[in-house]
């Protein structure tokens, strides 16, 4: 195949310019399509990530394990102390496990007495973290469960210790979790002892601030923050973290979930809370008065005019 060598290195051929121009216009069009019809492009992005990233999980998992091992090597010197500490913690956990089992049995007995049916809304799907978001501006992780495992957009995700984030973007085999620390994450929360409702707004730092709090004086550092279930966004009562005050006296939340070691996550199945749309039958419509079935003879004098059979 004879080629004119010089044409290859002559970067100013008009054909090349035209192709570059067309490519530039196509890229601009992609950006405009994204701006106009973002869900469609985001679905494409989700499908692309769904296709590309899991095919690397044979390499992602061992490299992550290697990185964990290497960071474990740094504390090699205190291995014995760590071992002791872990044994102590294991003992404590065993004691808690016993207490939990007993409480569970007691709870089952009491519920059976009340014949109350528990809403199975907190069943969950477990997934493993596949990949990070890869960007300093977006805090999100990729899970290896997707629409074929029944994951739906908007479900809460927890790591056992506290809420981690929300599902936003579901592919067939993967799903993206937007973490609570991401700048676009807002969830309604309740601050526990005072019962106030507020919003937890992420701002790309490790401790997101609380906004729209009515009476900040009633909130002290150390208060529990749980999800409030407002607007059907999240199931209510899930632990988010505890309040802390930063150096500027602004209220932030120290998240209970362990963001440094996100590995196994549980996606909580929840369906939007039912909304009551009508007023119900309290205000009765204007029916005609109902006649009594029997009229006693001594009371036959018509004090009230009634239709119907006497």
């Amino acid at each position, binding site marked *: 195949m004879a080629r004119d060598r010089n044409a290859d290195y002559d970067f100013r051929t008009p054909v090349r310019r035209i192709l570059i121009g067309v490519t530039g216009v196509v890229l601009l069009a992609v950006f405009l399509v994204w701006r106009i019809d973002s869900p469609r492009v985001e679905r494409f992005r989700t499908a692309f990530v769904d296709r590309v990233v899991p095919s690397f999980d044979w390499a992602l998992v061992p490299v992550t394990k290697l990185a964990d091992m290497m960071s474990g090597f740094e504390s090699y010197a205190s291995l014995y102390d760590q071992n002791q500490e872990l044994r102590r913690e294991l003992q404590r956990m065993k004691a808690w496990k016993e207490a939990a089992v007993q409480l569970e049995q007691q709870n089952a007995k009491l519920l059976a007495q009340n014949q109350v049916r528990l809403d199975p809304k907190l069943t969950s799907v477990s997934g493993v973290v596949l990949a990070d978001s890869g960007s300093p501006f977006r805090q999100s*992780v990729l899970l290896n469960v997707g629409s074929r495992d029944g994951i739906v957009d908007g479900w809460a995700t927890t790591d056992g210790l506290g809420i981690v984030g929300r599902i936003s973007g579901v592919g067939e085999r993967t799903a993206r979790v937007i973490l609570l620390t991401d700048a676009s994450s807002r969830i309604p929360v309740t601050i526990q002892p005072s019962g106030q409702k507020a919003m937890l707004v992420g701002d790309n730092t490790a401790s997101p601030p609380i906004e729209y709090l009515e009476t900040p004086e009633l909130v002290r550092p150390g208060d529990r923050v749980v999800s409030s279930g407002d607007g059907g966004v999240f199931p209510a009562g899930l632990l988010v973290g505890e309040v802390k005050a930063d150096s500027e006296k602004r209220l932030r939340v120290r998240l209970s979930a362990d963001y440094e070691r996100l590995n196994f996550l549980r996606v909580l199945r929840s369906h939007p809370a039912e909304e009551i749309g009508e007023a119900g039958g309290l205000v009765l419509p204007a029916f005609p008065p109902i006649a009594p079935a029997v009229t006693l003879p001594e009371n036959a004098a018509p004090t009230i005019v009634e239709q119907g059979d006497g």
Partner: protein
Amino acid sequence: MVDPATASRIRHRALFAALAALILFLRVLPLTAVPTRWPAPDLILCLTFAWLLRRSDYLPAFLVVIVFAVDDLLSMRPPGLWTLLALLATEFLRSREMLLRDLPFALEWAVFAAVVMVMTVANRFVLALFMVPQGGFDLTILEVLSTLAAYPVVVFANVWLLGLQRRTGGIADGLGGRG
């Protein structure tokens, strides 16, 4: 296959694609989910310009577009905009290759810094124009600074480990330089 020049070109293009894939892979690793205080440098950008300012024939425009498009999709950026800016920047530098060819490294670094800053400002400007919510300006500045700091490392790694030298450009160059 064909003559060694073409084979070398194809090999180097595949090498560039493999290096870019490796960088994306490392960036996507789920090592920690805590937001970092100091953003990681944009190594794809450093790699692209390190290769462009040395052997631009190993870096055709379509390869730049593909690599940056995949980068956009994987890192949750608005798709297409950063790729377009990268394409414009690489074409701008490619057309001025004669001037940039024999610069000392410090000037090359300055050129890279200028290009990266223009790209970043244009990116933020267009996103603000289209009212797309974006991260804070301080994070962007930190990312630009860490990218600039990482550029010499990337360049020296490419030059020493991969042997990516500038084309000497002369009739004696067996690879058919411009002579």
